[in-house]
């Protein structure tokens, strides 16, 4: 499977996404510069984490208007898998490929820590191989990850099962103390209506090598394995 990893100026998790994807059999990740006009040769696209355009204006705001996003929009329209990780999630929201907004964390500080997230919707290309309710350990690292959506739309998002990842404690309970940023309903990741576009704040690419995990886990790999092996 050919996976494009789009590199914006000051993306900084682009190589990390490539490295972790390479650990999955059958994945052929490729870095693509944001000004390259076409993603026609790719089966899926990942918008990586980082500080695209230095987070100028708002996180993701400028990247959402870059040439690559037109191509991403086109891929999303064709039903191909699109994943936004952290800053990539912010870009997808700014591009209105996903609903809502990502506000500054409650506490107004950048938060880098390992968290637990429950997979609530296994019907996306990125969660297909994960049982519903599974708790994954992954790190977060962001200053603007407090998901916000107007109450009515939030209810509809919840009802339609578009909350894909939710912050929980290690037992899968979405408690208040398990919410690292004050995000609405403990939401860590969502999908579009069709389910092929997914954005999440935690970093699955940082949770793919047991040596780098304080729990010697590699839960993030399941996200990429779902993508590559999703069709089988």
């Amino acid at each position, binding site marked *: 499977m050919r996976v494009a990893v789009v590199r914006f*100026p*000051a993306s900084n998790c682009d190589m990390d996404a490539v490295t972790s994807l390479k650990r999955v059999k059958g994945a052929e990740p490729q870095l693509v510069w944001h000004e390259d006009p076409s993603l026609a040769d790719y089966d899926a696209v990942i918008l990586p984490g980082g500080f695209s355009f*230095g987070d100028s204006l708002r996180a993701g705001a400028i990247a959402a208007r870059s040439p690559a996003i037109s191509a991403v929009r086109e891929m999303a329209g064709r039903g191909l898998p699109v994943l936004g990780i952290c800053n990539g999630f912010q870009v997808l929201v700014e591009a209105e490929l996903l609903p809502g907004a990502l506000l500054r964390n409650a506490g107004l*500080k950048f938060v*880098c*820590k390992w968290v637990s997230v429950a997979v609530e919707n296994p019907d996306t290309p990125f969660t297909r191989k994960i049982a519903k309710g599974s708790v994954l350990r992954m790190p977060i*690292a962001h200053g603007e990850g407090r998901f916000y959506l107007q109450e009515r739309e939030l209810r509809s998002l919840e009802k339609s099962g578009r909350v894909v990842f939710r912050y929980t404690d290690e037992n899968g309970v979405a408690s208040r103390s398990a919410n690292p940023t004050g995000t609405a309903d403990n939401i860590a990741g969502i999908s579009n209506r069709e389910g092929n576009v997914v954005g999440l704040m935690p970093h699955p*690419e940082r949770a793919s*090598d047991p040596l780098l995990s304080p729990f010697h886990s590699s839960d993030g790999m399941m996200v990429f394995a779902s993508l590559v092996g999703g069709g089988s």
Partner: protein
Amino acid sequence: MTGLESLRLGLSPAEIAAVRKRLGREPNEVEWSIIDAEWSEHSSYKSSKALLKLFPTKGKRVVLGPGYDAGVVDVGGGYVVTLHIESHNHPSAVDPYGGASTGIGGVLRDILSMGTRPIALVDILRFGRIENSPRSRWLFRNVTRGIADYGNCVGVPTVAGDIEFDESFENNCLVDVACVGIGRKGRLILGEAKYPGDLLVLVGGSTGRDGIRGAAFASKNLSKSADDDRSSVQVPDPFTKKLLIDSLLEVADTGLLRGMKDLGGGGLSTALSEVASNGGTGVDVDLDRVRCREAGMPPAEIMISESQERMLLMLKAGSTDAVFEILDKYEVSHSTIGRVTDDGLLTIRWKGAVVARLPAEFVVKAPLIPWPSKEPAKVRRATPAARTFDVGRSVLSLLASPNIASKRWVYQQYDHEVGLRTVLKPGQHDSALLKLPNGHLLAVKGDGNSAQCAIDPYNGAAGCVAESCRNVVAVGGEPIAMVDHLQFGDPSDPEVYWSFRRSIEGMADYCAGLGLPVVGGKVSFYNEDSASKKAIKPSPISLVVGLVEDEKHIVPMGFVERALSVVVAGETRAELGGSEYYRLLGALDAGTPPHVDVKKDAALYRAVLDLIRSGTAASVHDVSRGGVAIALAEMCLAGGSGAAVDLGALPSASKSVSALAFSESHGRFLIATDDPRQAGRVLRSSGIPFAIVGETGGDSLVLRSGTRVLSELENDVLHMSFEESLPRMMD
């Protein structure tokens, strides 16, 4: 002289006379400014160079030692690690956010200019007492935020640090940032203009009026009107820096770079004179080609501006197209400002005229200053009288004291994961541990202890190195190289200079005894409190890197398993001087501080590494701030299991419970093992005093003296003291 006075030069009358004598003429305004920038303490090391020669700088892994933008160490498999440390003390004291940010910017450029990729940052910070000083909290909060906003954006993880709070830093905080880089041994790039005819290309940010005389600002005492010095602080731009890093690493990959130099203190003046002098050449530069942020900047200002995010490239004429194509892709601006010549001169043109012409060799060689030194009269206060002594309460107070308490509030604001290299993360163990592309791991840790250095700079400074080494050894690392940062008051004060000299001697002797090469360093003088006019406590810092060859050789710090024996390796002496316990009692300057014994330490490090590699040790932690009692508490907190320990069984000539519990004697480790006999054999054959002092298990830390229980503290209670202290003060 009135013309000269208006230039606000930092040069002394003797230096001014030396300039006139050597040149045989009166330099013009631009020339004075160039010499002034390069002869500042910051750029010239004129007060320290002679003493820095004491450091051992050679070793089998050393590729390049001091004198370059970064030290270079061979880590095997064709890879090198580059190391550098910088401080931004004065800028951070007046503008903590901007000062700390640009401090990172500067050290990143030093690593980048070697053609190596920055892979980790380490911050060593010193502030006043945040418990009772709003100003210190303001400095601490904004320095942390500055480091976070800059480091997180450029995508270099901040993996370790060391923070000390002491009233001597109330108005002159210390903000040190070290950076580690990785690269290929055969692809290093140096800051040299070796080939006459090569083009000089200025890359990155524009040149503005920010950071004018920054190096000079760093080379004098902070004045009461320090707030007027904000214009000496550069403006941070991490986005441009990230593009510089990405584009210049891509440029370096082309093999077309003939040299590269960052623009730091002294700006173009320093960069141009140093590349010419290092390359044995001259340079001819047209300042009209320098892209300025505002119109009408006079040539002297263009030459000494320290605007951030700029690099100087040396390129072969005709090879620029491929390089410019890469820079254009990242929208990094570039301008060809001149050429390398063979005349040994720094020739500066502006509006068609030569505005400065100076011998490059002369500019980079400021006359050294042999300052007098004098040992201060000993003012030794009596050991604090024993009062009602409660071990448990003291342990909890120490755990909550800012110097020992969890620094989670700080490191959680830093991205310490980006790059997929961070195996041991902040708060997890004694050092950070990074995965290298050659399959090995690199341990990194920086340390300092101004309280002990203030009483005994020789042992205090050597002790900083000892602590860094212990931290590296505890994660299984063999110490392979060190960089230092020496921060003191005004060198013209003989007592300050004495403490400077003794600190260097202490560090140098320790490194020599251990065979640990010093591959780089930095000196920062004129650190004194603007209100009290007192110098900061002597603050030498060491940063040590160590190599772990196999990931299997990592054992945790905490007590994870139950029913293991707890072994103490090394002797506890009654050395409470400068300890956190005495700080708690308000008697920091009383008593005897720890002294170092490098011979014993070398044997100890070998033995502990042996115990780790052989699998005998299940967990390892070094003993430092707060002594054995705090080290035990930290192991309970890190692993989750409790422990019961007899302090009376520690190898020690002292019977004092406070010394046994809280003395900060060097050369000690705590080890949990299921094979205490084997551990004993290894330690005994290395000549290390040791004892089996207790056992892991339960949910509390029980400290005894013989059969008498001194304290019993549940892990939850330890946790509250340790974790809640900083957030309570800061949020």
